[in-house]
């Protein structure tokens, strides 16, 4: 259940990655969505930062070979994926299937496009969607993700079984993903409508 990338060109024409100032701006524009991408691939916070950092360094080294008519965000996701594959090979980790990868890639593409267009980011949408979660799911999400509690600690704090915590988190992620997808899709549609 992922969104299709409907905006092919996600870099404002004014930003040229070969220009140092523009490159710095592109780093700022894209790093967080790429962090989410790398984190979902590796499931490791520190490794995902290393991968994103390395990806931007590689992009900068090869910036003169970059075709400016292409999409910078797409190019960066490709470098992140290559870096992740290197890491998978080196660490003998589980590799995702092409279908799983393309699904994740399409979602991140939409998120990057939103950020690059200067409209609301995926994090803005997430905050709105968090507020719409049912209370029991929201308090479980906060205990686990935002208060940093383990499953057992969240279970103790909320007075429910650990299995119920896992179920609630899974349900909350499903609802949040759906809500975020809808919000961003609506934002895209309204941006494409003639004024």
């Amino acid at each position: 259940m992922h969104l299709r990338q409907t905006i092919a060109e996600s870099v404002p024409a004014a930003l040229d990655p070969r220009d140092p100032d523009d490159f710095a701006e592109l780093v700022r524009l894209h790093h967080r969505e790429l962090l989410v991408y790398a984190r979902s691939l590796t499931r490791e916070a520190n490794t995902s930062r290393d991968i994103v950092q390395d990806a931007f360094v590689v992009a900068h080294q090869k910036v003169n070979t970059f075709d400016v008519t292409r999409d910078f965000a797409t190019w960066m996701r490709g470098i992140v994926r290559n870096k992740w594959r290197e890491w998978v090979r080196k660490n003998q980790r589980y590799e995702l299937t092409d279908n799983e990868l393309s699904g994740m890639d399409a979602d991140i593409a939409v998120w990057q496009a939103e950020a690059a267009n200067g409209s609301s980011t995926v994090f803005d949408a997430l905050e709105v969607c968090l507020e719409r979660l049912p209370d029991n799911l929201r308090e479980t999400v906060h205990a686990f993700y935002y208060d940093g509690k383990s499953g057992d600690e969240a279970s103790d704090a909320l007075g429910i079984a650990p299995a119920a915590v896992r179920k609630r988190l899974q349900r909350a992620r499903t609802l949040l993903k759906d809500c975020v997808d809808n919000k961003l899709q609506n934002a895209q549609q309204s941006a494409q409508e003639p004024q």
Partner: protein
Amino acid sequence: MNDKDLSPAQDRLADALLAEHARLGRGDDEQLISAILAQTVQAPATGSASPSDDVVLPMQPLPQPAMRWTDFAKMAAVVAVCVGACVLGLQRFQTAQPTMVQEQRQEHVFQLVVADGDAQPAAPRIERKVLIVADRDAEAAGTDIHAEAGGAAISQLAIAEHGDLDMPIAQFERSLESLPAVADRETTFMLASDDTVETTDDKLIYSGNVVLTHAQFTLTADSLVIDQAAATPVLKALNAKVQHRDGGYRGSAETVSFVPSTGELSARGVTELVDSQQDVAVSPIDRVIFDGGEITIERAFTSPAPVTR
């Protein structure tokens, strides 16, 4: 919002999104941006200067390569190991003669038994029974330097060859099968190491090629500490590898803890975890519990104060 289940990949994406939002909110990762810019657009030029550029510049500090996140972790690990080594060395120095377990003997094989503790039913204790003490200087292979039966059903163990622990471990595993009750097997295990120190604060420290053999698993580690004074003794192994027989999985971790009285085996700082089918993705900050044939992962997330754009 509808409620149909996400695919595993989409669930990973939602999980990563929440974890990243919990980490920094809507804000930028300024540390990461600085590190990237320092290595890219702000990096000092490496090309050779032309003669016309030959101007005298004031002295400047040498550029420092940008640190990677895992470099910080490695530095922390090196510092921790150095501090640990200093502490261990200090303890050995302070506790030299009275508490060292016969310094000239380098390889020890012990049997530890968790007794019911009739006198203190609430606090099971570990009994250490020396089965074999093999002297590194002993030249004759298969020589028993010292042997003491730890229980009627446990056969005597012998170091078959100088420095070779495979034989006594195999013998120990066979001797476990001869024990009458499963409970006895579960609470009996063997520890072997190059060196052993008993400190004044009632800690037993095993170091160098530590091997813990239990009915369900084998653990190898650089060092292992038992706090004998604790109400519930815990064996804490550093830089350890676990091979679980029943579960068919193996793993490596910075610390592995074993509670003999409950049989709980858990790990933190897991660097590798492989079950019979495939590699299991675990973050170093997660806690992994090896529960018989199953693995439970307690995920942990950090949540510093959000930074807003």
